[in-house]
Structure formats: structure tokens, C-alpha cells
């Protein structure tokens, strides 16, 4: 396991370097003056442009700039917003909390509802309920998350207000609310009312994917020899399904969820924007029309790092759960 871990971390560093290089060249080396981009307008005045160019070292040769960029990444200096001069590190510290909390509950929803639905669907395969799950998971993956978010706002924000729905259904649909938490993650007081709709919206697509994959892998392991062995040993159906089937079926699901942690926390751009949730994603979205490239770039670097860690954890969990991976053996194609 240790040698696997070292190998994976070295690979990860290489890939991270590459990803950051791609991002760097996208922002700083392609045609178009980055000073103009940073200033946020094509008709910026030349003096300001010169100041910006000096400040960001844009007059240096590209390789020097690249070296400085990598240096800043290594020391985790994400730069400074060009709009309001705040450090992007501070912006990240502020927004990451909201994103972590929202992401945590989205993952909880995804795990509980996704896996439960998938198991139900597999156990009752080809029943009406299974067909319903199949259709609705396809439907959920086709709804744009922001349309789903707006639909929730209409249902729980607008309609109870207009008398179309009972008023106890009323939920706030804008912002983070009182921002009161116990042990960082647990909402206290009225907080849950602000949390529940964005969390479900954010979780929607992944929940559908988790349900589908759980169903598929459950049906696959169903045919495995060890399941027949378990039944032949005389175990009851529940023991067979949970102890033998589920444990193996969940390996790919667990990996999927681990990767999802990175996505849900770092790039909940659409959900956070629709619900005005003050997280990393909505901050990136807000920086885009302002063309605040320093913030977009800085937060993107942070998100790429987070994403990389999530992927590493996913791989390690896979290797831990499935010894064939870490021993370098060939894993059967799924």
C-alpha cells in the first residue's frame, strides 16, 4: 500500500503541474493582453494598463512569469482581487466555509438517497418501482441544476406566499440565512431552512448517478460466483445481499462519491449562484462578468488542488477496498 501511495502521489504532482500549466497559459500566454483582461475592459487607459502590467510582472519574459506563477502556487499565494484589492486567500477562506457546509449535506443526501434508491431498484428489478426510478434518474440528469433550483424557489418560495400552497411549506430561497452552525456542519435554529433546498439541488445529478451505478453494480454482482456460494451456504437473503452483494457493489460507488466531494464543494457554481449561497462557486461566477481574472484564477487553482486531493482519496479508497488494484493486477473491465 505504501509504495502504491507514493507512486500515486508522484503521478498526482505531475498531473497537477500540467493542469496548472494549462490554466496559466490559458490566462496569461494566449493572444490578448492579460493586463486588459485583469483591468476588466478592452478600453482601459494605457497608464493603468502599464501599472497593472508591472504589478503582475506582465512585462517579464513569459518563462519568468511562469516561474513566478508556480512559485506563488507552491507558497499558496493566490493573488489579489483586482476589483477590491482583497487577497484571494482571504476570499477563499471566507467562501470555503459556506461551500464545505453545503457540499457536506449534498454528499449526505447523495449517499443516503442515491444508494438506497439504487438498492431498491436492483432488488425489485423490472418492477414498476424500478422503471420509475430508471425514468426519474434519467429525468433528473437532464434538468439543468439552475432550472431545478428555480423550480424549488417557485414551489417553496413563491407559491406558499401567493397562497397556491400551504404556508408551512414556505422556505427561504435566497442566501445562507443566520449562518448558525454546531460543530461546523450541523445547522442550528432556522438554519436548516436555508440549507435544505440548495443541498438537494446540488445533490440532484450525483444522486441520480449514484442510484444508477448502485443498481447496475448490484445486478452485476448478483451473478457472481461468491453470491451463489453464499446462498449455497444457506445464508438468508438479507445476509447475502448486504454482507456479500452490497459490499462488493459499493466499491465503484464509493470511488464515485469520493470524486464528487471535490466537485460538490469546489464547483457548485450553478447551484450556489441560483440560491445566492456565498460559497466558492458563486464567487467564481460573480467574478466572471466583472472579469476579475485574479479571483477566477486564484479560486480555480484552489479548486484544482481540492479536486486533485479528492481524486487521490478516491483512488486510495479503491485500492484499499479492492486489493487487485494495489497489487497491480488486472481488474476486470466493468
Amino acid at each position, binding site marked *: 500500500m505504501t509504495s502504491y501511495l507514493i507512486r500515486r502521489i508522484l503521478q498526482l504532482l505531475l498531473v497537477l503541474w500540467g493542469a496548472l500549466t494549462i490554466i496559466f497559459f490559458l*490566462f496569461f500566454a494566449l493572444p490578448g493582453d492579460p493586463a486588459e483582461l485583469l483591468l476588466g475592459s478592452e478600453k482601459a487607459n494605457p497608464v493603468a494598463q502599464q501599472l497593472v502590467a508591472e504589478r503582475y510582472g506582465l512585462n517579464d519574459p513569459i518563462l519568468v512569469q511562469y516561474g513566478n506563477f508556480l512559485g506563488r502556487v507552491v507558497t499558496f499565494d493566490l493573488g489579489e482581487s483586482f476589483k477590491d484589492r482583497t487577497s484571494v486567500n482571504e476570499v477563499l477562506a471566507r467562501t470555503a466555509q459556506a461551500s464545505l457546509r453545503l457540499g457536506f449535506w449534498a454528499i449526505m443526501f447523495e449517499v443516503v438517497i442515491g444508494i438506497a434508491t439504487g438498492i431498491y431498484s436492483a432488488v425489485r428489478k423490472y418492477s414498476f418501482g424500478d422503471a420509475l426510478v430508471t425514468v426519474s434518474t*434519467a429525468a433528473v440528469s437532464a434538468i*439543468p441544476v439552475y432550472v431545478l433550483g*428555480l423550480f424549488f424557489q417557485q414551489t417553496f418560495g413563491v407559491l406558499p406566499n401567493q397562497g397556491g400552497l400551504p404556508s408551512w411549506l414556505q422556505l427561504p430561497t435566497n442566501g445562507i440565512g443566520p449562518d448558525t452552525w454546531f460543530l461546523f456542519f450541523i445547522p442550528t435554529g432556522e438554519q436548516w431552512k436555508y440549507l435544505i433546498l440548495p443541498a438537494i439541488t446540488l445533490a440532484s445529478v450525483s444522486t441520480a448517478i449514484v442510484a444508477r451505478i448502485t443498481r447496475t453494480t448490484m445486478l452485476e454482482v448478483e451473478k457472481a460466483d461468491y453470491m451463489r456460494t453464499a446462498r449455497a451456504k444457506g445464508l438468508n437473503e438479507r445476509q447475502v445481499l448486504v454482507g456479500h452483494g452490497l459490499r462488493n457493489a459499493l466499491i465503484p460507488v464509493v470511488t464515485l462519491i469520493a470524486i464528487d466531494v471535490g466537485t460538490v464543494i469546489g464547483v457548485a457554481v450553478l447551484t450556489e449562484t441560483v440560491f445566492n449561497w456565498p460559497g466558492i462557486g458563486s464567487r467564481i461566477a460573480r467574478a*466572471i*462578468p466583472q472579469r476579475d481574472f485574479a479571483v477566477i484564477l486564484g479560486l480555480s487553482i484552489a479548486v484544482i488542488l481540492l479536486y486533485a486531493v479528492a481524486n487521490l482519496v478516491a483512488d486510495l479508497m479503491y485500492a484499499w477496498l479492492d486489493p487487485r488494484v494495489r497489487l497491480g493486477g488486472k481488474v476486470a473491465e466493468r
Partner: protein
Amino acid sequence: MSMVPVQPLGDADLAAPSDQAFWRDTWRHFRRNRLAVVGLAIIVVLVVLAILAPVITRYDYAAIDTESRNLPPFSGDHWFGTDNIGHDVFSQVIYGIRVSLLVGFLVAIFSTVLGVIFGALSGYLGGLVDAAIMRVVDMFLAIPYIILTVALVGVIGRGLSAVIIALIVSGWFVVARVVRASFLQLKEQEFVQAARALGYGRLRIMFRHILPNALQPVIVYATLAIGGAILAEAALSFLAIGVLPPTPSWGLLVAENKGLLASQPHLVFFPGGAIFITVLAFVFIGDGLRDALDPRLRS
């Protein structure tokens, strides 16, 4: 499906001796899947609506009629009503089909072709070429999709063609991985050795012998990628970095009208519903193709 261009003649016969029968079989299985047929029917209807858009709409999608603002649905000729500056929402949504289908098909086709080329080279040639291509793919995959597209659009600029290019650039590497995996398996098989023994060139073996056998996952992926590209374009436009107004992108329409949710929810839910129905149709078709193309799933 008969419309898939597989070479039925010449040395492709060596690779896939019963192409015709295979595709006939696939179509037969596809047809039995009710959801897939529904999906296909929806797409046919949408294509017809897109072509006939000038005939079935009475108003210019970009025209502003200050006399008739904020009309509810089914008021006179304005079937979907009008928005707060007097756009005819029906025209916008119908012309939006053109934008979405154009983005969907172009992005799916070009990212698939690029992915097939790089995946084939990577899988067949192996060695240094493989290592180089796959490391680049890994690097792209390390960037979250939305960050990559946002960065690309930021660099290329706004507008329809910028969005299409950005989505192609951020879409090819997934196909490349899938194709590489198939090529790695297939290149060891007898028919490829036979073709090599006959002295055929590498490119010919790659694209005429191996590729037709590696197409099944690619076709499924490409179908799902159409829906994915439509969603991505709508998302970028929703974030105000996609197509430029007055181009009638559904995502842009949702964004422009979301402030009117309380008073006129239909302004959000007509374009939003259009995205949903279109993407759902491609998901159904993709699922149907996956089942129909995979002999193991046929029952």
C-alpha cells in the same frame, strides 16, 4: 442504425464480417426500447421545428414590441406570452432549438472525432506517443469541467462559435480515453494480426480494421455528449459568459427572466423545459443505443 457510416465493403469486411446484420439487429433492439423511440421521436420533431422555425413563428425572436409586454401565455398570437420588454417567447424558444442543436451536434461530432484520432493513436502506437497523449488527457481531466470551460471562454471570448470551440476543447479527452481502452484490447486480436501480416499500413489498420469494432462505446458517448453539450452551452449562457443576446439560447433566456419568477414563472419554465426535454431525449437515445449495441445486455 443504418445511418451510421460503417464501411461495408473492401477490407473492412475483414474487420467486421457481418456489419449489415449487426446494424439491422441493433436497430431491431433499439426499436423495442420504448423510451429510446420516444427520445428519437422528440429529436425528429425538434429538427423539423428548427427547420420550419420561420414558418411557424409569427414574430422575430429579437423584435421588441413595447406595446405588448408581460403578456401571459396564450394571449393572441403570443402562445408562450411575452417578456418584460416585449419579446415573443414562443419565437425565442423555437429559434433556441437551432442554437441548442447546432451546439450539441457540432460539439459532439468534433470532440468525438478528435477523441477518436488521439485515442486511436494512443492505443495502437503505445509507447511514448501513448504516454504523451495520456498525460495530456490526465492534465485536462484534473481541471474541473466548469473551470476549464469558463477559462476557455474567458480566453476565446463570448459568442456562439467561442462556446462551441471551448466545449470541443474540453470534451475530446474523455472520448480519447474510451477509444484508447478499446484499441488496447482490440490490437491484440487475430484479425488485426491478420491485417498486419497482409502488410497493411498502420493508419489503414487503425481506422478501417480496428475502429469499426471500437465504435460502439463511441456512438453511445457521442449521443450522450450531444445532450451534455446542450446543457453546458445553456449553463455558460446562464452564467452570462455564453452566447451573446439576442441569440436565443435557452440558458440565456432562463437567466434573463429569472428575476420574474414570482410574477411570470412561464418565462423561466418554457426555455428551461425546452432544455430538459431535449437533453432527456438524447439521454433516452443514448441509453437505448447502449443496450442495443451491447450484445451482453440484449435479452
